């Protein structure tokens, strides 16, 4: 996997104008990846719901109504109410906000850390790399969820604790991919010439290496977001995540919900469905992004590539065009 991502890097020097790159990307997404587009829409809806939760939710996140406990879905409560009379729909909507916050911030922390550790370890090499990698090894020999569970219980459950812990932990384990990418381009001639002209290490890392490993970094980020959301939900489900009464999708499936799940199955059904749809959509979007960034996944050889040869030829021409004529 690491090698896959690593070899992408060398293709990513097309350096087109920013505006046209974004619109061009969206056009290709719509034309070539219908599922990716659907995923993008789900992602967008999720973000909007998260931001506008206050306006969209018909009731407050923790507005209890002891007269309306465990009500089946109805016109007043589209997804029913829980054992405290809280509206499940409203809590699912607020859950989108928590998932978005955790998903984005933990992924940003993780990706930043991946870049820092991976670039230094990959570029400096030698003893430094050896020592850092042993730490990464040690970190990676624990199952994620167990490690995170223990650390969160150490820091005390809470939204920010979960974000920081997931971010740091996955930053450490994900740094391998960045390191692989850096090692793959380390011996390139343009880096040698940069060294020969007396560029400082900092300049080489920021100006010469970083832009060239942008593709794997984007891929790390897009694959982290849905995984972080799932991990937060799993932790909250086990009781080591965002503590109640905050409406985390995972937390809504544990504790009271499990005690009442036979009487009020809607309490466990809707939050899980929201979680699945969100993770599914973001994954689809992320996959499409990866495929569009990675030209290697296009076409092929032998019989199975033949059917697409015309399309492939045009694509390769376009790619070469982009590489040789930046504008």
């Amino acid at each position, binding site marked *: 996997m690491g090698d896959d991502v690593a070899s992408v890097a060398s293709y990513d020097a097309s350096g087109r104008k920013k505006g046209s790159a974004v619109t061009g990307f969206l056009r290709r997404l719509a034309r070539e990846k219908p599922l990716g587009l659907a995923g993008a829409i789900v992602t967008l809806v999720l973000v909007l719901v998260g931001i506008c939760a206050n306006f969209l939710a018909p009731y407050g996140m923790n507005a209890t109504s002891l007269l309306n406990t465990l009500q089946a879905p109805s016109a007043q409560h589209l997804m029913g109410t829980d054992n405290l009379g809280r509206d499940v729909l409203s809590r699912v909507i607020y859950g989108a906000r928590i998932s978005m916050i955790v998903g984005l911030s933990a992924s940003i922390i993780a990706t930043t850390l991946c870049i820092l550790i991976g670039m230094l370890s990959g570029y400096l090499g030698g003893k430094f790399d050896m020592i850092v990698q042993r730490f990464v*090894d040690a970190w*990676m020999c624990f199952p994620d969820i167990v*490690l995170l569970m223990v650390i969160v219980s150490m820091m005390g459950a809470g939204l920010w604790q979960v974000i920081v812990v997931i971010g740091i932990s996955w930053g450490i384990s994900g740094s391998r991919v960045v390191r692989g990418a850096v090692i793959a381009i380390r011996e390139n001639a343009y880096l040698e010439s940069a060294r020969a002209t007396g560029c400082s290490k900092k300049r080489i890392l920021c100006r010469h290496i970083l832009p060239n490993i942008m593709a794997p970094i984007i891929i790390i980020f897009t694959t982290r977001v849905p995984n972080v959301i799932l991990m937060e939900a799993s932790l909250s489900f086990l009781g080591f995540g965002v503590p109640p009464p905050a409406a985390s999708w*995972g937390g809504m499936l544990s504790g009271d919900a499990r005690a009442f799940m036979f009487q009020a199955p809607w309490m*466990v059904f809707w939050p899980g469905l929201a979680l699945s749809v969100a993770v*599914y959509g973001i*994954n*689809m979007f992320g996959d499409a992004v990866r495929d569009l960034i990675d030209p290697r996944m296009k076409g092929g050889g032998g*019989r199975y590539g033949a059917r697409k040869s015309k399309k492939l030829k045009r694509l390769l021409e376009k790619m070469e065009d982009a590489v040789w004529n930046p504008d």
Partner: protein
Amino acid sequence: MKVYVVRRLLLVIPTIFIASFVIFFLVHLIPGNVVDMMVSGQQTATEEARHTVEHDLGLDVPLYVQYVRWIGNISHGDLGKSLWTKTAVTQEIVARLPVTLELGIIALLVSLLIALPIGIYSAIRQDTLGDYLARTFAILCIAVPGFWLGTLVIVFPAIWWGYTPPIVLIPFADNPLGNLRMFILPGIILGMQLSGQTMRMTRTMMLEVLRQDYIRTAWAKGLKERVVIVRHALKNALIPVVTLIGILMPTLIGGTVIIEQIFGLPGLGRLIVDSTFRRDYTLISGVMLFYAFVLMFVNLVVDVTYGFLDPRTRNRYR
């Protein structure tokens, strides 16, 4: 080859030391002193009672002394005693292991059974409707959380048909069929979660192999499709599948933690969740160390096997 194996083995030593260090200090930083929790049960919670409890548990010496003692004990196979139940940690692990092992093996088998055929199909019919459906299914397996699927599988049959899965563990020796019935549902759910990853990796590996020159040669020789796929492509694509088990291992263990919680299976996962709630330091660190050993061992075996199968990778640890 010998050099490669030795190098790979040497790398394990610092890793296991760092890992043990991480475990020990993480676990001892957990707030909510276990002594407070134990003493709070008694009516007369005096300072003196606290001190005796602390002394009995060996918590009254500085942390580094505790670490050295712990490492010393581990070196002759003693992981300490649970702070709560007073049973030896090794004994607890041995008692819980079969459940997790059975669940894991069933899940792994299920995942390979689902993932390999679909992954291969999806690769040889790249960009057809079947491929799209297969890939959608793979992402669905990853996206739908096991704790939701597990809950639904328990809730809806109970509501519609009044069926509930057995709650008390049936040992395999007493009633093999009943035991399997108990494990099959959680096994399938966990297996499905794993199969998403497996399917995608099988597809990628197969696609990579299908682009090789020798496959083109095979086609050019006019061989039948079945022969090209099975004899030429599949054989080579399955070598990296060995690594799959290493890659899947953390997901598998993480999955057992959650699935055991849902289906009430008394395995290692339940043990670690319960002991984290109870701040049972020795138990937490024991189980984490066990997990770390297992993962490291599996990775070692995978790397060495891979080195045997594919000579190109041996240079990785120069």
